[in-house]
């Protein structure tokens, strides 16, 4: 019999476990909520913690309060100078005011659609006022800050904060991309042929320089050689002259004899009496 009290206690605990939670709700660090009574907002809570509510009458709708990413689909936009750019943007956003959010949005899905519309239209409008080069260039942070500000302003009334809008990608459509590839190719081809031409030029310069140097070297040597030869010849002439001038007459006689010997050895001779030599011979002297 002494355990009999256990069953009522158990029943009380179970009933409490079922009933008590409907008096309270817990908000996580990642959540925020509105408390609704018959569809009317009684309270908006953004701090985590334990809160009370009237059971069965109040209902609690919780929303994420963390930063979320909305990846806007890549869209074709047109710059002021009528060029097509494929931009892929994303927005970082969060719900900051659950009350306004509940009042204006039925669900997060609708919120996303709204974010998509607003971000996309601001991107298109803002970029549409800029030239292609300015959109493509790396200096688009200011423009994006501007877009962020405009979008944030539009979404403010919906209880949504647009933290930033950024361009994940700004690309050319395929057809323009191919044109760029072609241009890049021809640029590089030009560069390659220019480099080769430079190589030929440098090489030719070097060869010509070498040829010139060699030619000058040979000419200088030839000049020196001529001078040396001339001086040799001159010295030889002086030596000859000095010697032969001692008796020019005898030199001539001697030289003549040498010449006779060298030049007349193979000739046919008719020796006639006009010659002293034969005359003397024929006369028997």
């Amino acid at each position, binding site marked *: 019999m002494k*355990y*009999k009290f256990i069953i009522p206690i158990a029943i009380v605990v179970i009933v409490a476990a079922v009933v008590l*939670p409907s008096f309270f709700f817990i*908000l996580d*660090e990642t959540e925020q909520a509105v408390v609704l009574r018959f569809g009317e907002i009684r309270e908006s809570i953004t701090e*985590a*913690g*334990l809160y009370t509510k009237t059971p069965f009458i109040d209902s609690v709708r919780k929303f994420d309060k963390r*930063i*979320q*990413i909305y990846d806007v689909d890549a869209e074709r936009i047109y710059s002021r100078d009528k060029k097509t750019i494929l931009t892929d943007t*994303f927005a*970082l956003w969060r719900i900051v005011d659950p009350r306004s959010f509940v009042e204006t949005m039925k669900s997060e899905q609708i919120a996303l659609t709204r974010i998509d519309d607003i971000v996309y239209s601001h991107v298109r409008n803002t970029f549409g006022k800029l030239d292609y080069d300015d959109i*493509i260039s*790396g200096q688009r942070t200011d423009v994006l800050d501007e877009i962020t500000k405009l979008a944030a302003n539009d979404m403010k009334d919906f209880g949504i904060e647009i*933290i930033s809008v*950024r*361009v994940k*990608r*700004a*690309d050319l459509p395929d057809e323009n*991309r191919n044109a*760029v*590839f072609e241009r*890049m*190719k021809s640029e*590089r*081809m030009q560069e*390659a042929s220019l*480099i080769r031409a*430079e*190589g030929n030029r*440098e*090489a030719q310069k070097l060869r010509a320089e*070498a*040829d010139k*140097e*060699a030619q000058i*070297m*040979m000419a200088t*040597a030839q000049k*020196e050689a001529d001078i*040396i*030869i001339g001086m*040799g010849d001159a*010295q*030889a002439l002086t030596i*000859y002259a000095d*010697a*032969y001038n001692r008796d020019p007459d*005898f030199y001539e006689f*001697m030289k003549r004899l040498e010449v006779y010997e060298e030049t007349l050895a193979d000739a*046919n*001779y*008719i*020796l*006639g009496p*006009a010659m002293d030599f*034969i005359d003397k011979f*024929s006369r028997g002297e």
Partner: protein
Amino acid sequence: MVDVKIEEPEDNFTGGGGPKKSFLWSGLFVLLVIVAIVAVYFLSGFFLVGPDQVGLIKRFGKYTNTVGPGLGYHLPFPFESVVVVDTSNLRKQEIGFRTVRTGTYQTLANESLMLTGDGNIVSVEMVIQYYVGDPAKLAFNIVDDGDIVKFTTESVLREEVASSTIDSILTTERDTISIRTAERVQAELERLGTGILVKNVFLQEVAPPKQVIAAFDDVNSAKQDKEKLIYEAEKYKNDLIPKAEGEAAQLTRVAEGYAQERILNAEGEADRFLAILQEYEKAAEVTRTRMYLETLAKVLGEASKTVVLDQSSVLKLLDLEGSER
């Protein structure tokens, strides 16, 4: 036999002392069950935090404190709960490619191709490594760290690439781009309060798009061709100049040899002449005649000759010689 069988269970069912005993039993049983439930309930507050993790304790959903690795305890639901966050593991995001499995990569053209500031397109692949600096911020401020890091890095990287030229991206600016990207991504993640710390940004393959890579390679081979042409011309020069120097030296030496020869010949001949002259002067007339006759003998001695003793027959002979030819 049949009756007995039916009677037996009846007997047991209404057996003396049975109800009292089973009530006691069931009371004890319920108590045990309750104790067990309570024990399990309180035991559910134990949790394990790994060596590279931290536990974030929340009381009624509100973050109160952080506990380190080991066995921890929090008050059971609904009073307290814990979120365990990996902290020391390096997390990473890949841009422009995906690791299919270790060592195998797949390039994603749409993600890797980027416009450069000079209107060209370059293929850039990057890895960003990061870790959790503030677990509470990571767990409570953002939905997903991977996408935030990846998207932010992608947008910053593209801006960096767009503010540079293709040639400097391919060569000198590589490091600058990764450093600047890391800094800007870090600043952005801090501004958002993500609790993420960027550890490294590595540029992997930075290359011209595959459609134009052949043309880019050709530029490199043109550079090599240029080097080769210049090298060959230098080789030509290095061959030619020493050869010319040799030839020039040869020319000079030959000339010197010639001059020396001429002088020596002249000296020799002069000496010979002077020697003969010296002898000649001793007996001029005789020597002269002797020299003359000696030469005559030498010249006429070998040669064929016709001697005409009569003056008139010389012409006839000349006619004969002429007609013979």
